[in-house]
């Protein structure tokens, strides 16, 4: 690792880890002969019940990391272990909230949420009952009969959250879930997410490009460097008290100190990342 100043990622005994990525590299075979290496030498672990946020410049490979954890793509080198077992095929214990639109456009909000239990073998009646319950938890009872195209971006994300959480996954992967939303909605959604997580603490890998959001939500913030062959350049533990309120925690002096510390490390990478994307465009 050449950035000597950055702290080494905190490792927890991999036996207890919900997710353990070890020395992982992901290379896409593409137009180039050697392919394109998106991430390289990534070591990352998430303890059971831990909330980890990943922050990094655009194109650094955050989604790629989540895809590997979900088992949608296999690492070219290194390993992915889930609760101590090497991951083969899809990660059955993970729920994945995708960055792009992933709801079934031909199903209503209720049907979209009910599909998880239905697929798992619940009766239609039972699945609908539970789906209604989850729609109520994300505050969308009145929108149960709407199709995705009739919902706002934020409402669609909430349906997606309910769709994933109804299956009660042990690991929750979230890829910029509040990305396209305005600041106020982001705070509301963030608090909703924290409430749900407080009620049932799952291991969470939360990708965002908003450092403040990462600190406000997570137990640990992991910073990725600019790609290609991006690496994790640092990790910081967030020792702010829980339960938190997103808008209040931002007023905490400890929040500011941490933000300043991480930002000074991140800034150089962000500038590097922009320069590279500009050069490529």
């Amino acid at each position, binding site marked *: 690792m050449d950035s000597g100043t950055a702290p080494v990622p905190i490792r927890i005994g991999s036996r207890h880890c919900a997710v353990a990525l070890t020395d992982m590299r992901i290379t896409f075979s593409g137009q180039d002969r050697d392919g394109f290496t998106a991430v390289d030498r990534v070591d990352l672990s998430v303890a059971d019940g831990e909330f980890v946020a990943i922050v990094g410049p655009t194109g650094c490979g955050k989604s790629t990391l989540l895809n590997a954890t979900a088992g949608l793509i296999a690492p070219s080198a290194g390993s992915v272990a889930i609760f101590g077992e090497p991951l083969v095929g899809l990660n059955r214990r993970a729920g994945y909230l*995708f960055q792009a*639109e992933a709801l079934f456009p031909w*199903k209503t909000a209720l049907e979209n949420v009910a*599909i*998880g239990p239905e*697929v798992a073998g619940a009766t239609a009646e039972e699945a609908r009952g539970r789906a209604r319950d989850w729609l109520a938890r994300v505050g969308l009872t009145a929108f149960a009969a709407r*199709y995705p195209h009739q919902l706002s971006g934020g409402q669609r994300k909430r349906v997606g959250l309910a769709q994933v959480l109804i299956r009660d996954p042990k690991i929750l992967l979230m890829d910029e879930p509040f990305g396209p939303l305005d600041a106020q909605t982001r705070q509301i959604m963030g608090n909703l997410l924290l409430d749900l997580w407080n009620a049932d603490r799952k291991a969470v890998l939360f990708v965002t490009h908003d450092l403040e959001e990462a600190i406000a939500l997570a137990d640990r913030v992991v910073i990725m460097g600019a790609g290609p062959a991006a690496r994790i350049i640092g990790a910081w533990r967030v020792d702010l008290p829980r339960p938190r309120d997103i808008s209040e925690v931002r007023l905490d002096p400890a929040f500011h100190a941490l933000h300043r510390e991480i930002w000074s490390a991140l800034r150089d990478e962000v500038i590097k990342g922009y320069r590279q994307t500009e050069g490529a465009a």
Partner: protein
Amino acid sequence: MKRARLLFFQILVAVVLIALWHVGSTVKVPAGFLSQKAFFFLDPFFFSTPFAVFERTWRDFATGVIWFHLGITLLETLLAFVIGAAGGVLIGFWFARQHVVAAVFDPYVKMANALPRVVLAPIFALWLGLGIWSKVALGVTLVFFIVFFNVYQGVKEVSPTVLANARMLGMSERQLMRHVYWPSALSWMFSSLHTAVGFALVGAVVGEYLGSAAGLGYRIHQAEGVFDVTGVFSGMLVLAIFVIIIDTCVTAIENRLMVWRPTSASSQT
């Protein structure tokens, strides 16, 4: 544009055209005006007149002769559509899921689709006789390819994110079929439904025209044989009414099944 206004202009177009036809075919241009002899702009022998056509059509419906032929054509159209669509859906699904099969058959599918289907009509008449089945077969060859290509496309074009989501939600291959591929293919198929139904009718009418003893195509052919232009136009009029009714039914079915699809109408309101 408001519905009423739109309808008004639509009807206006029909009225103007019919009026022109009426004037052209009934008002004689006096002799010595543009030529030596008096003449019609639209000679009624070749163009008939609107009233004659309407009157003939009315009489055909009132006396009931047309119902039998209409029924035959409707039956052929429906059979061609159902068989062609079912085949297109099945084969389309199969090809989209089996890349090897699709690759092997690809040149033959293209060849078969490029063939002008009219040349098949005599062959079908030879194989299947002059009854309804040779017409159904002709319609099937037209409908099949439209539905086939659309279903194939629909299965192929499922959003990769939606597919990944479905798999992460724990769907088996069969559940993917039911919850993802099928609805996607169906939406593509419906986008081609109007064309497919239209082609089913074309197959039936062309088949009848080329050799049969019943149906609207047969009626038109008969009228043509004796230079009965009024009969030909009357047949075309019945055909047009028939198409509009079928198309309205298709639209109604589409609106029922495709509620989830964003339409320009719903995004405006």
